[in-house]
């Protein structure tokens, strides 16, 4: 009797929990249908020749094609270069600017606003603006260089330079975010460390190298992971500036996916998506595990 009573009250308590698991439902439905289901389906459809209405199972043929066609391989390599270049530059420049902006330099508010504002501007707009400014003969950049007697490079038509030019614009647009993340990290370092090191006679460089750099680690982790994941998936800036050209020299995985989709090769496009997924996973997951482990060890 008491057992049944207890069970009943326990059951009613579970039902009446003020934190209802039903609250997961709306988010779960949207996320499940439009994100999880397509992701799971992509694993299957990447193995098919697919027209949306009909599919034919062809095994790994799409992936074989992906690693044999030179322009698809080029896209894969470019993705890696682009991701590493943008995130590396954002870490270095972001940290330098953040150190400057957390010192007692004049006009900090102005500087922070100027550096951060591009983060909020339309990527396509930025892409078009820089495409016009990077015109080899009539663009503002090369005309300025010409004024100083320097012959500017062909930013967007030199096959060796084009990807780095776009990466540069990406850094221009994104370094503000890295900067504010680093600023938050630097501000949270206790001042005592700096005061103690001043008493011990440390130079500015020693303070930076031995105090700031190790203690902004969490911010570095965030900046590296955010910009790597963003850089590897990057599409809109590249598409607005060169559409992957000239030739295929600035194609990345995301633009390959779009081109194959436009051309109607849905299976191949989906295979590209899976390759991108695996690439991002292979880089981001070990990196975050590695970073987090180091942090616990500290």
């Amino acid at each position, binding site marked *: 009797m008491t057992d049944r009573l207890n069970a009943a009250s326990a059951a009613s308590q579970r039902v009446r929990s003020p934190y209802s698991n039903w609250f997961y439902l709306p988010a779960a439905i949207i996320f499940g249908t439009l994100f999880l289901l*397509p992701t799971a*389906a992509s694993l299957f459809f990447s193995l098919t020749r697919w027209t949306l209405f009909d599919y034919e199972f062809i095994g790994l043929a799409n992936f074989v094609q992906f690693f044999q066609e030179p322009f698809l391989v080029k896209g894969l390599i470019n993705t890696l270069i682009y991701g590493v270049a943008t995130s590396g530059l954002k870490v270095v420049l972001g940290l330098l600017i953040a150190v400057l902006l957390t*010192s007692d330099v004049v006009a900090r508010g102005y500087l922070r606003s100027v550096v951060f504002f591009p983060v909020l501007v339309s990527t396509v707009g930025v892409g078009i603006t820089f495409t016009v400014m990077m015109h080899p003969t009539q*663009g503002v950049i090369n005309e300025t260089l010409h004024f100083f007697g320097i012959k500017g490079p062909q930013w967007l038509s030199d096959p060796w330079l084009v990807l780095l030019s776009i990466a540069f614009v990406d850094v221009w647009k994104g370094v503000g975010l890295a900067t504010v993340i680093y*600023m938050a990290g630097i501000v949270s370092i206790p001042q005592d460390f700096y005061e103690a090191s001043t008493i011990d006679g440390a130079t500015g460089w020693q303070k930076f190298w031995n105090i700031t750099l190790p203690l902004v680690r*969490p911010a570095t982790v965030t900046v590296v992971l955010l910009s790597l994941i963003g850089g590897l998936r990057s599409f*809109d800036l590249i598409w607005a500036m060169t559409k992957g050209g000239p030739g295929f020299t600035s194609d990345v995985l995301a633009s390959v996916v779009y081109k194959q989709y436009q051309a109607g090769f849905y299976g191949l496009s989906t295979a590209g998506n899976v390759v991108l997924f695996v690439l991002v996973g292979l880089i981001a997951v070990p990196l975050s595990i590695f970073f987090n482990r180091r942090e616990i060890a500290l």
Partner: protein
Amino acid sequence: MKRASRYWVGGLAILVSSVVFLVPFAFIVITAMKDRKAAALRELSWPTSFHLWDNIMEVVKTRDYMLITALVNSTILTVASVTLLVITGAMVGFVMQRRPSIWTSVANFLVLAGLIIPPAVVPTIWVMQSLGIFKTLHGMVLIEVAYGLSFSIILFRAFVATIPRELDEAAIIDGAGPLTLFFGIVLPLLRPVVVTLVVVQSVAIFNDFTNPLYYLPGNQNATVQLTLYNFQSQFNTSFNLLFTNILLITIPPLIIFVFFNRQIVAGMTAGAVKG
């Protein structure tokens, strides 16, 4: 930093940052003010005659007032997506923080997956087509919600932790059910983080180019970012109009930046310090 170096380092920083970060914006504004011929020179020179208003009128009229349609579409898309993101994200963040269970770990894993995994494009179109929401604005809203949920949940879960449980308990003793508790007590207390999320996600969704390109094709449905892309070929020889368009769609983020600078930075650096 010594007194003197404080000034010359600052001066140098102002000079460099102005050249690097302000010149592109100056170029946009100046080109938008020129007539077609002067703009075609792509020079960073002060316009000899001003045509900003004419340019605006012409851009607005292009393709049967496409920019106005696009502005309406973008506004609906942004407002609807952000509203849904706040409600659904806050509900999940709330329960995740308050009631650890098997679902918490599942949700944690899915949140991370949502942050890392690039969306599978064609399968998503396939799913949307079978549901009849491909090429529709409400379908696009749901896509933005699905892609923004992870960020929203992380932000809300962290903030719910700062609301004392005693408040919940008091409300429960007063007879509040789960819905009253959440919508009546907790959600109003989440206001600071709601503002942050609204600002950050509004900018992101308003500026989103890739997803509307895939899931919302067609001139009737164009969003402002797509007008820019569509006009790019049409205005190939009229840089004045192209840059007027860029100028026009930069204004909403600029307004948000001026009024909500602090919230944006707070939202974007959330979790950065603790990792």
